[in-house]
């Protein structure tokens, strides 16, 4: 898994490539936490290049969303591939965080 991060307009955007599972999710959680701990609690996850997500990966995203909300921000996700989208739908994550189609919409949902 590769993670690239950029901060624009007060939002941290993480572009993730590869698999988010029990082996890689600790690295992702640490990266996402660094933004929130550093005061940027509006976080966007670009998942266009994520090919697989496991329960541990979902847990990492939910924990980050919880911390982001506690910091008066939020977490939005965009660009899910169909296999990943299937996992998101089964877990009903779209009921607790914005799961949208592109980055502009993610920014709007986080109050850009």
């Amino acid at each position, binding site marked *: 898994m590769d993670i690239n991060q950029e901060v624009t307009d007060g939002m941290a955007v993480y572009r993730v490539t590869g698999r988010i599972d*029990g082996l890689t999710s600790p690295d992702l959680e640490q990266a996402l936490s660094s933004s929130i701990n550093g005061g940027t609690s509006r976080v966007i996850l670009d998942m266009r290049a994520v090919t697989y997500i496991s329960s541990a990966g979902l847990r990492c995203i939910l924990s980050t969303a919880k911390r982001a909300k506690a910091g008066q921000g939020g977490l939005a996700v965009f660009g899910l591939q169909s296999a990943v989208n299937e996992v998101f739908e089964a877990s009903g994550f779209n009921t607790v965080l914005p799961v949208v189609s592109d980055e502009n919409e993610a920014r709007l949902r986080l109050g850009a």
Partner: protein
Amino acid sequence: MEHLTLADEIVVLMLDDETGAIRPLCAGFANVAIAGGILMELALLARIDTDLKSLYVIDPKPVGDEMLDSALQEIAAEPRHDGSKSWIRHFAFHKGDLTSHVLERLVRAGILRAEDRRLLWMFSRRAYPQNTGREEREAKGRLLAVVFDDAIPSPRDTLLLSLADSSGVLDAILSADELRKASKRIEQVVAFEEIGRSVKAVEAEIRLQIEIASIARPM
């Protein structure tokens, strides 16, 4: 025992304070809830992971708890990556009396005490009253916070709610009115975790079997 595992917590919640026995409402589902709790704890400890089709070991290193390590060893030795439902059925139905095992370990940990009580002066049965009840109050408080608060719950509390929902604990600690009002929220949170959904599915299989058996019973 440094802290209670989810399997320990759900057993504490399933106990009836007065009788010191598993509540009748929960008894038929106790082993399934414990099996689910074991898998959930291993997942939280980053030893196993799951997806929609399979459950697999990501780190076979023992966690230092005999119940969890025994399950982890068994999963690690299985070359096929069956799904979580299959493992829940395996541990719940083929590993003996999980409920008694957890009750006894809670006695050893000083959370419960074992008492032999007489019923109608003839029958003897073992009761497990709580020593302080602190663990039950703490777990109940977390459950109620998840149910009645709209905030995103922690993974541990999400999983505990799944077990409480499937085992009948929620029916025991909430009124019918509270359950009705919270039903959407409970459904939402239970869906978050794959193992929680599997526990619910296995519980539904048992309920169906009970229903079929009651219909098939001769008059």
